[in-house]
């Protein structure tokens, strides 16, 4: 047996040696070529300072050697004395192995390069990144399968047709999602918006961007409602974004609301002298009620009726002159109810000193002294910065606004409204605090007052920029 083998080798050694030598030559040349090529590439990448160089060199170095081996084996087979059938068979086999290796290398390379570059787009959601990478992977896998099938002589046209139809069907089925993904990439790439931005949409919704996903942007409004805006819609909208982080208050502004109940004192006046006599003795809550009750009861009116004393003197006693004098008392000038009461009493006494007190109210139209009872209740709304403050202020009830402007200033003896105190003490916004403090709230409806305060703060912010 061994003699037979030795005999076959002695007669056919050239048939084996030539392809083997060719294959070994390819290996030697490959090693040399790879060394030269990668030395050159490292030099070029070093000069260009390309961040992807390590990835490229790491992944392709091994693959390059594999490709050389496959090429060497292919060449060896082609110059061998094998039949054409076997040559063709090995040719297809090595071709297929080469395509698989090439596809694998490209996929690995692209995956790592995409990760490197997409990570720099901070606003890009992780799921979008995953979708892009997987999409590219699938494309190369499909392409390599088609090439391999083609190498083996299998018909690929029907497959490609099928694939095209499948892709089109998938596109139509998931067109919104696809558009949202691309819009999401655009939002992230152009840095149109990012988590934490305060946005106001053309449709009126506004709030903070709490999350950006591959499909939509989640906007959290001041009332904790979440709006979902599809990415594709967001890029087509006109959006106002406040991108600069706002100054945070040292203490948040806690919004309160207040409710009133009327308590009868049982005291009533039918004439001016009775009115002034009782007015001097009643407690502050009574004076507060009769100088502020109209603000809440008639908060929709501009101009609002004057205080109850002025109305009664004009309407029930028919004393228009004194009525005008009492109406002209500017409540805003006073920082305490005691001082306001003194002024009211002085004006009535001045009038009584000049003429006898002959007028009396018709029966049933006496002045009834009423005490205001207040319950102050904290709401769930808190503001940490000016933007948040404005947004909450837009939605709180007028009772809340009333409490912080009127009740706090005069009834809780603070002398200034709550908003100005917070702006000054907790946000160090002295100028804005003063602008709101000098607003005379008695000359506005409560809604008008709300708009005015918002306007002042918005003007102060000056941080809005239109995009989209």
């Amino acid at each position, binding site marked *: 047996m061994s003699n037979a083998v030795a005999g076959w080798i002695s007669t056919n050694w050239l048939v084996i040696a030539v392809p083997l030598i060719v294959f070994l030559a390819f290996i030697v040349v490959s090693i040399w070529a790879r060394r030269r090529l990668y030395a050159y590439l490292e030099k070029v990448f070093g000069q260009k300072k390309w961040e992807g160089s390590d990835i490229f060199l790491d992944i392709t170095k091994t693959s390059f050697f594999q490709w050389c081996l496959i090429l060497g084996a292919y060449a060896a087979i082609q110059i061998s004395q094998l039949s054409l059938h076997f040559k063709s068979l090995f040719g297809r086999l090595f071709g297929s192995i080469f395509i698989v290796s090439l596809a694998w290398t490209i996929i690995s390379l692209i995956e790592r390069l995409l990760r490197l570059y997409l990570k720099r787009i901070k606003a890009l959601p992780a799921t979008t990144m995953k979708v892009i990478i997987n999409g590219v992977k699938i494309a190369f896998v499909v392409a390599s399968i088609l090439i391999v099938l083609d190498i083996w002589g299998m018909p690929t046209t029907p497959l490609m047709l099928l694939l095209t139809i499948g892709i089109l069907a998938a596109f139509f089925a998931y067109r919104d999602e696809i558009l949202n993904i691309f819009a999401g990439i655009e939002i992230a790439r152009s840095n149109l918006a990012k988590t934490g931005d305060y946005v106001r949409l053309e449709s009126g919704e506004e709030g903070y961007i709490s999350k950006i996903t591959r499909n939509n942007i989640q906007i959290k409004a001041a009332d904790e409602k979440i709006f979902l805006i599809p990415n594709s819609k967001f890029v087509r909208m006109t959006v106002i974004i406040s991108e600069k982080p706002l100054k945070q208050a040292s203490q948040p502004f806690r919004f309160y609301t207040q409710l009133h109940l009327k308590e009868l004192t049982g005291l009533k006046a039918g004439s001016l002298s009775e009115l002034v006599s009782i007015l001097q003795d009643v407690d502050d809550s009574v004076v507060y009620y009769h100088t502020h009750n109209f603000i809440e009861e008639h908060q929709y009116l501009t101009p609002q009726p004057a205080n109850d004393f002025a109305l009664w003197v004009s309407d029930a006693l028919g004393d228009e002159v004194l009525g005008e004098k009492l109406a002209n008392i500017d409540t805003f000038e006073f920082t305490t109810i005691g001082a306001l009461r003194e002024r009211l009493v002085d004006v009535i006494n001045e009038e009584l000193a000049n003429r006898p007190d002959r007028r009396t109210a018709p029966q049933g139209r006496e002045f009834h002294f009423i005490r205001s009872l207040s319950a*102050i209740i904290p709401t769930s709304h808190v503001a940490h910065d000016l933007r948040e403050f404005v947004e909450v202020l837009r939605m709180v009830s007028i009772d809340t606004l009333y409490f912080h402007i009127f009740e706090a200033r005069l009834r809780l003896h603070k002398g200034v409204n709550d908003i100005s105190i917070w702006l000054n003490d907790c946000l160090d916004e002295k100028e804005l605090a003063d602008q709101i403090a000098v607003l005379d709230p008695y000359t506005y409806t409560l809604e008008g007052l709300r708009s005015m305060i918002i306007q002042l703060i918005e003007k102060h912010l000056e941080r809005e920029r239109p995009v989209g």
Partner: protein
Amino acid sequence: MDKEIYHHAKAKLQDYAPLVGRSTIEALNALAGRLSGKVVQNINSTYTGGGVAEILTRMVPLLNQLGVDARWTTIKGDDRFFGVTKKFHNALHGKAEHVSPEDFSIFLEVSRKNLEELKFNGDIIFVHDPQPVVLISKKQEIGERWVWRCHIDVSNPDEKVWEFLKSYVVDYDATVFSAPNFARKLPNRQFLIHPSIDPLSDKNKDLSPEVIDSVLHKYGLDKEKPMIVQVSRFDYLKDPIGVIEAFEMVRKNIPCQLVLAGGTATDDPESDKVLQEVNDRASSNPDIHVLLIPPESDIEINALQRAASVIMQKSIKEGFGLTVTEGLWKGKPVVASAVGGIQLQIKNKFTGLLCHSIEGAAFAIRLLLSNPEYAQWLGKNGLEHVRQNFLITRHLKDYLMLFVSLYYPQDVIHL
């Protein structure tokens, strides 16, 4: 007798949010939260009929929805007892009534029986009107907070009856009146809580133009002609003849029609006589429509008010005047006499026009029909005034505040 109503299938509190704002409902919830664990026991004389039962039917379920354990109990009484309380009612309104010592004995006897049989289970005992007033005698024994809610005008009462009731009223922790001038000077705390209307009731809810048109068609009214409407029972105190005279003054120059819609009161023998007089006075004028509307015709009343160009309430004497509130809620300009509770609702030239005479009423109507923009402005203000001050949600808020204030004597309560 001790039937307690915990749930009543009426409007849900959230249904009011579109009308009064979500923040109002939130505030009610916050306030109600402070009454957690407290039982409010309402006591009156009947579950059906009359204004108090109507208010409690709506109020108790709403309080329950807010998480307040509100209950409703009625006292028991025979015909003799209710005969006496009817006399009391009239006497307190200032009407001459002969109330004999025997009447007082009957009242006390039935009250004593109720004291023995009634189950008191409230932390706050909320007693409505004079019928159950004597129940306060139980206070010594069971303690708790007691409130007497007076729904009637006691500004000018029969002194004998008032003094008798007052001897019980003064023992309550607090009393509640509907208007300042309805109240009496008392040593205990007195609160002012105005009546209210329910914007979701048939009488006040929104109606489609088709419903309004069908009602106009039913009564043969011309929808193209300006309509002046007064809704009230046929009573001299509502001055229907005065309304006709004012209308005739206006009609000389401005084409318009008058609708006097209402019913007759079964307990008022004068009512039919007034209706007859009104019919006689109106028969010669085809533009005057006198409509005798049966009870439970709330949608028809609503439709007439909504079809009106001007709503009138030319009363000579008035309690609170809820028909004015209803008119204002429809966003219509209202012309009304400056009497009673009407003055609380209409700030002259701001939320409506007040008048003191037939001529004044005619002038006001003419002004409104000739100046539709001004009429519209008044109507809009009136509607907002009611939204802010005279809806059931405000009533609910006042009751919650009242209950809370029983535990806090100060003027400013930090909750």
